[in-house]
């Protein structure tokens, strides 16, 4: 354990940017876990007497058209946004990696059918596909999770398939087969753990996209519904006030959104450097 910590410290010392990303991640997770307990105001309590106030000492990020405290709403929204992103990416990674690894390992009709399926998925602009799926599955948070998981699926399938194809004929797999391991055991014990690092890097980048996607969907009125605090909805509500100069309603949730995506992207880059130093750009 101590050795691992020392290694972690060594790696982070050489990657100040990754350290910064980790700090941002801690901040975001802190907001998501403790946020509702910490914020000064009830995020959905309206108070029309103090509507549309600019940022001040009492309302750090100002108030929106219904007098709700923007700061409280931005902090509380972290939980929902991050939860959707994590759920979607985990689901997508779990299904995609198993399916992709099976495609790469067994080849044959499974591979052909799976590859065709991913081609079709990739033929749609992903956001458009997510839009249609949320509409089809019903306008709810779980549909957003499923839709986001499905549009990320092709990336995991392709990655897991490629990584498995490289390894399936390697010596250690052959040895495992000779040793009497069945297909399921080879996949589970010898292949999946080996392709996991590549999948985790992909997952980190995808978390950023998932947050963007969720916010984008709720921005156009799909998925999460008002008055639930969610960054995309808040930006959408603030949009009509931008032209009259009340920037704070949309700007702060927008900034939070940016911070989250930025954090996951940096983290993904940092992880890639650690996992595969050759691909540094």
């Amino acid at each position, binding site marked *: 354990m101590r050795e691992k910590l020392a290694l972690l410290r060594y790696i982070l010392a050489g990657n100040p940017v990754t350290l910064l990303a980790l700090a941002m991640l801690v901040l975001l997770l802190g907001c998501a876990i403790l946020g509702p307990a910490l914020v000064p105001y009830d995020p959905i309590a309206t108070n029309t007497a103090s509507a549309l106030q600019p940022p001040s000492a009492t309302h750090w990020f100002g108030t929106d058209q219904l007098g709700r405290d923007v700061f409280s709403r931005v902090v509380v929204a972290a939980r929902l946004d991050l939860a959707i992103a994590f759920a979607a990416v985990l689901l997508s990674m779990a299904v995609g990696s198993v399916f992709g690894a099976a495609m790469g390992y067994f080849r044959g009709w499974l591979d052909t059918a799976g590859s065709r399926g991913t081609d079709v998925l990739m033929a749609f602009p992903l956001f458009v596909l997510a839009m249609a799926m949320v509409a*089809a599955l019903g306008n709810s948070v779980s549909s957003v999770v499923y839709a986001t998981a499905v549009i990320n699926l092709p990336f995991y399938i392709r990655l897991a398939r490629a990584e498995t194809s490289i390894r399936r004929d390697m010596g250690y797999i052959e040895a495992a087969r000779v040793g009497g391991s069945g297909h399921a055991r080879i996949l589970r014990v010898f292949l999946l753990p080996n392709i996991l690092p590549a999948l985790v890097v992909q997952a980190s980048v995808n978390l950023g996209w998932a947050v963007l996607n969720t916010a984008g969907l709720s921005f*156009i009125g799909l998925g999460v519904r008002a008055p639930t605090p969610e960054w995309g909805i808040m930006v959408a509500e603030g949009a009509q006030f931008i*032209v009259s100069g009340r920037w704070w309603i949309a700007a702060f949730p927008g900034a939070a959104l940016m911070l989250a995506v930025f954090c996951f992207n940096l983290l993904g880059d940092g992880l890639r450097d650690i996992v595969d130093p050759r691909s540094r750009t």
Partner: protein
Amino acid sequence: MAFLLRRLAGVVPTLFGVVVAAFVLTRLLPGDPAVFFANSVTADAATIAAVRQKLGLDLPLWQQFLVYAGQLLRGDLGQSVGTGQPVATDLLRLLPASAELTLVAFALAILVAVPLGVAAALRPGSVIDHACRLLSTAGVSLPTFVSGLLLIYIFYYQLGTAPEPIGRIDPFAIPPPGITGFLLIDTLLAGDTEGFAAAARQIVLPAVTMALFALAPLARMTRASMLGVLGSEFIRTARANGLRRRKIIVSYALRNALLPIVTTLGMVFSNMLGANVLVERVFAWPGIGSYALDSLISLDYAPVQGFMLLMATIFVLVNLVIDLLYAVIDPRTGLFHA
């Protein structure tokens, strides 16, 4: 030629899958279209059954699909309830607005990103390199609907240099005769420089918003690819032979670095087609994205289906063009010989 035919044949199963996917997705949409078409929630069961029969909704799903596929082959995308027009007509009417926006943004992104990436690769570690890195990391993190609003706030509200974000032209202005449907070109063809300036002023902010979003992956890939090529031996040889710097960079390095850049271009274009919906929403741009979104919200099947098919078709065609570009850029890929 054989390659071209084979590549075209490869498109067919994908497009078929796209049609199936669009069909299945829209059949899953909530709300009973028969009730919707009967124009009343309280319509009695007999009326609804009659409407259902008329719309063919009482047939088994596979028969409905066959009917649908047959209509598609005749170019019939169905009828929009919202506008009362055939969907194909609507899409054709609105496509130029979206295409103009996307293409202007695409051109803008390429014009900025490629030189920036090349400059960054020529001097790694310099100010330009850091600027390129910052831009490419920040660019992918910036949601288009947030950057769009930010630009509106700065350039419309604070500086007053941009017009109000209410679409392609001033609602009181007379649109130029529609020849191409691209306002920038139509106004020029009509010799209306004032109209051209007005249209240009309207398109600047949405186009910049989209370009910002497309810029990041392009600049990043250009830089990485150029760095790789510049470090290779044939560049060293070219330098040693005393070739001019410009020639080395443009015709030796960039040409060889182009392949991954073009791949990224295809990806970026697809993302832009998706981002269109959001940008059109922010700037009230009357394109196919807004149209699809309005239809989606009012549970109008056919336009959404048509929109998805159009998007997927455009994307498949773009990929086809990119595959052909590969062969032009790098004859070694052997696509024309194989």
